[in-house]
C-alpha cells in the first residue's frame, strides 16, 4: 500500500468579523515588518489585548493529521461546521492551510460542485470542453472521451443548444458527466449526489464505485450516510475541526449518530397552565428501542417504540389514547389508537410498538390525542420528531434505502412464473 495523501498537523484559522486590519497603512506596516523579518506590529497589539480578541479567531481545522492509501475510498463526515468543507478546500487547493503541510502523489481533482465554470451562453459541447479543461483535462483527452461523456449525460439532442436553455436536471447531468470522466489518481467529491433523479443518482453511484475499483483514490464528503456507507471503506468523523473518530465506515457512522442526536429522544409535551382542570394529560413522549433505551435516530429496519407518559386526574370511561405519524410534507402516514377502556385516576405509561412496516429514511412528526366518548381530552400536534436514518440494520438486497422510493420500504411478495 502506498500513501498518496499525507496530511500533517493541518490547521486553518479564520478571522471573524472584518477581514484585514482595516486600513491600508496598517496593512503596509505589517507587511513591511514581515519583510524585514520582524514581528507584525499589529499582532503585538493583539497580544496585549488577547483577552479581548481571543474570540476573533475561529479554528475551522485544528491540528488534523491523516494518511490516505492508494485505492482508498475515504468518507469524511461531520456536522455542519465541523470542518469538512475547509478540509476539502485545502485538499483541492482552493485555499492554503494556516499551519501544517499536505502532500499528494499524483493528479488530484475535485468536484466541489458540479458545473463549475459552465458559461450559460455557450453550447453544451463548448461547455464540456471548458469545464473539462477547468477540471484539469487536456483538450485531446476530452475529445477522446467526448462520446462517452455525451452518452453518460443523456443530453445528446441538446448538445448544440446554449446551456442556459437547459433544465436544471440536464445541466447537472451534463456537468456530472464531464466530471465523472475525469481520470485523476485522486478524486475529491462533495455532495454531488444531492442532485438529479433517482436513476441518475444510481448512475453516479455506479460510476463512483467503478472509479474506486480501478484503484483510484476517492475522498467523499457527504451528508448522505447511505451513500457513504455504500461507497467508502474507511471514514473520518470531524467535530469542531478535529478528528473525532477514524476507522471503518460503519463505526464512524455510528459515532456520528451518537454524537449528533443523542439528546433528542425524549420530548416534553407543552401543557396549559392549569392541568388540574383537565381530565387527563400526556406530558412526555420518548422514542426508544425495544429494550427501552431512548434513541433519537432509528436505522431503517431497527425495531422501535414510542412511550407516552400520561396522568389521569379522574376516572374516565371509554378512554382512547392514540398517536399519529406524518411526514414533513404533512402526509399522514399512520394513525394508531387503543381500544376504548375504563381508566382509573393515576400515572400511566403507554407503549406503541412498531410493527413490521419499514418507513423510509427521513423525519416524521408525531401527534397525540386523548379522548373519551369521542370528546377530546387532549390533542397535540408536532410534539416529537421521529428520525429514521438511511443506515440499515437489515440485510435485504430488495430494499432500496435511497429516499424517493416511497414511504414504505417493505418489499412486496414476488412470484416468478415461467411459461
Amino acid at each position, binding site marked *: 500500500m502506498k500513501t498518496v495523501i499525507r496530511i500533517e498537523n493541518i490547521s486553518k484559522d479564520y478571522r471573524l468579523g472584518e477581514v484585514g486590519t482595516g486600513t491600508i497603512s496598517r496593512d503596509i506596516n505589517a507587511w513591511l515588518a514581515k519583510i524585514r523579518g520582524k514581528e507584525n506590529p499589529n499582532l503585538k497589539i493583539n497580544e496585549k489585548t488577547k483577552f479581548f480578541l481571543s474570540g476573533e479567531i475561529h479554528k475551522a481545522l485544528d491540528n488534523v493529521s491523516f494518511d490516505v492509501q492508494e485505492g482508498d475510498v475515504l468518507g469524511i463526515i461531520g456536522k455542519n461546521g465541523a470542518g469538512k468543507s475547509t478540509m476539502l478546500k485545502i485538499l483541492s487547493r482552493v485555499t492554503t492551510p494556516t499551519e501544517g503541510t499536505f502532500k*499528494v502523489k499524483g493528479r488530484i481533482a475535485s468536484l466541489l460542485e458540479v458545473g463549475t465554470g459552465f458559461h450559460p451562453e455557450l453550447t453544451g459541447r463548448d461547455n464540456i470542453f471548458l469545464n473539462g479543461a477547468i477540471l*484539469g483535462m487536456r*483538450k485531446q483527452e476530452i475529445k477522446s472521451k467526448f462520446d462517452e461523456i455525451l452518452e453518460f449525460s443523456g443530453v445528446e439532442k441538446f448538445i448544440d443548444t446554449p446551456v442556459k436553455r437547459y433544465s436544471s436536471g440536464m445541466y447537472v447531468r451534463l456537468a456530472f458527466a464531464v466530471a465523472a470522466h475525469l481520470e485523476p489518481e485522486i478524486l475529491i467529491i462533495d455532495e454531488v449526489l444531492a442532485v438529479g433523479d433517482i436513476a441518475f443518482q444510481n448512475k453516479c453511484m455506479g460510476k463512483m464505485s467503478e472509479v474506486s475499483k480501478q484503484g483510484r483514490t476517492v475522498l467523499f464528503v457527504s451528508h448522505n450516510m447511505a451513500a457513504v456507507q455504500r461507497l467508502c471503506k474507511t471514514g473520518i468523523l470531524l467535530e469542531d475541526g478535529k478528528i473525532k473518530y477514524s476507522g471503518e465506515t460503519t463505526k464512524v457512522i455510528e459515532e456520528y449518530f451518537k454524537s449528533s442526536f443523542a439528546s433528542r429522544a425524549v420530548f416534553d409535551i407543552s401543557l396549559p397552565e392549569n392541568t388540574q382542570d383537565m381530565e387527563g394529560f400526556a406530558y412526555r413522549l420518548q422514542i426508544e428501542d425495544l429494550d427501552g433505551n431512548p434513541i433519537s435516530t432509528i436505522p431503517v429496519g431497527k425495531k422501535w417504540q414510542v412511550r407516552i407518559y400520561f396522568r389521569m386526574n379522574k376516572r374516565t370511561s371509554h378512554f382512547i389514547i392514540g398517536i399519529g405519524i406524518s411526514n414533513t410534507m404533512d402526509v399522514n402516514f399512520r394513525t394508531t389508537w387503543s381500544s376504548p377502556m375504563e381508566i382509573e385516576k393515576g400515572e400511566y405509561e403507554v407503549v406503541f410498538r412498531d410493527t413490521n412496516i419499514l418507513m423510509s429514511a427521513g423525519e416524521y412528526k408525531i401527534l397525540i390525542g386523548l379522548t373519551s366518548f369521542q370528546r377530546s381530552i387532549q390533542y397535540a400536534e408536532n410534539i416529537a420528531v421521529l428520525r429514521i436514518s438511511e443506515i440499515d440494520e437489515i440485510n435485504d438486497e430488495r430494499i432500496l434505502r435511497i429516499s424517493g422510493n416511497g414511504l414504505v420500504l417493505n418489499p412486496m411478495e414476488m412470484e416468478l412464473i415461467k411459461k
Partner: protein
Amino acid sequence: MENNYEEWTLVVKPNTKWFELHLSDLWRYRDLIMLFVKRDFVSVYKQTILGPLWYIIQPILTAITYSIIFGSMAQLSTAGLPKLLFYLSGITMWNYFSECLNKTSNTFIQNAHIFGKVYFPRLTVPVAIIISNLFTFLFQFSLFLTILLFYYFTRTDIHPNKFMFLLPVLLLIMAGIGLGLGIIISSLTTKYRDLRFLIAFGVQLLMFATPVIYPLSSMLGKKKLLLLANPITSLVETFRMGFTGVGGDDFKWGYLGYSFSFMVIVLILGVILFNKVEKSFMDTV
C-alpha cells in the same frame, strides 16, 4: 513508510517562497487558456444581431465623436492628419491597453465562484483576457487599416513606413503592462474594493495623459516630459508614426526601451503579488 520528499508530486505549505511561481503550470493548462479566450470572445456577442461588428462600431463612433468635440470644437492639433484617421490610430491602440487593464483588474472578484471550487492556475484567466482582447484589437485594427488605405489613396501626406513592423513589439509591451498592472490591481482589490472604483475612472483619466486625442508634438517642455513618463505614450506615438508617418521627430528608441523596462517590472511585480494572493484569496474576497 518511506518519507522521501521527492516522491510527492505536490507539497502544500502555508508559507511559500516569493518566487515559487509555478509558471510551468500555466503551460500545462494552455488548452484552458484557449478555451477561456473562446468563451470571452464568443459570449460577448451571443444574441446580438450585429455580432462581432460591435467591435468595429464602438471605435468608429468614438472616433467620430472625438473628431467633432476635440477636432472641430476644441480645435486640437491632429498633426496634419485627417481627424478620423488620427483619432482612430489613438483609439485602436488605447482600447487594447484599457480593455486589458480593466478586465484583468477584475480577475479575482469576477471569478470568485469558480476559484472557490476548483484549483487551476489562476493566471490563466488574465492571460486569456489579454489574448482574447488581441482578437478584438485585430477587428479594430483592420478597421483602422481600411480607413488608412482610403486616405493613402486619396491623399498624398500619408506615409506608412518600416516602423509599422514594430507593431507586434508594441502590442507585446502593451499587453505586458496591461496584464502587469491589471493583476496587481486585481490582487489588491480582493482586500480593498475601493480600487475598483479608482481603476474605472483612473483608466479614463490616463487616456488624457496619453497622446490619443492630441499628438505628442503639440506638447512642449515639462508637459512633454510628463507625457513621456507615461509608458503608453511611446507605444501610441510609434504606432501612429509607423502607419501614417507623423511624429517622427519625437521618436527615440530610448522611449520604447523605457516602456519595455516598465513592462518587465510591473509584470514581475504583478506575477509575484498575484501568486501570493491566489493562495488565500478565498478567505478574504
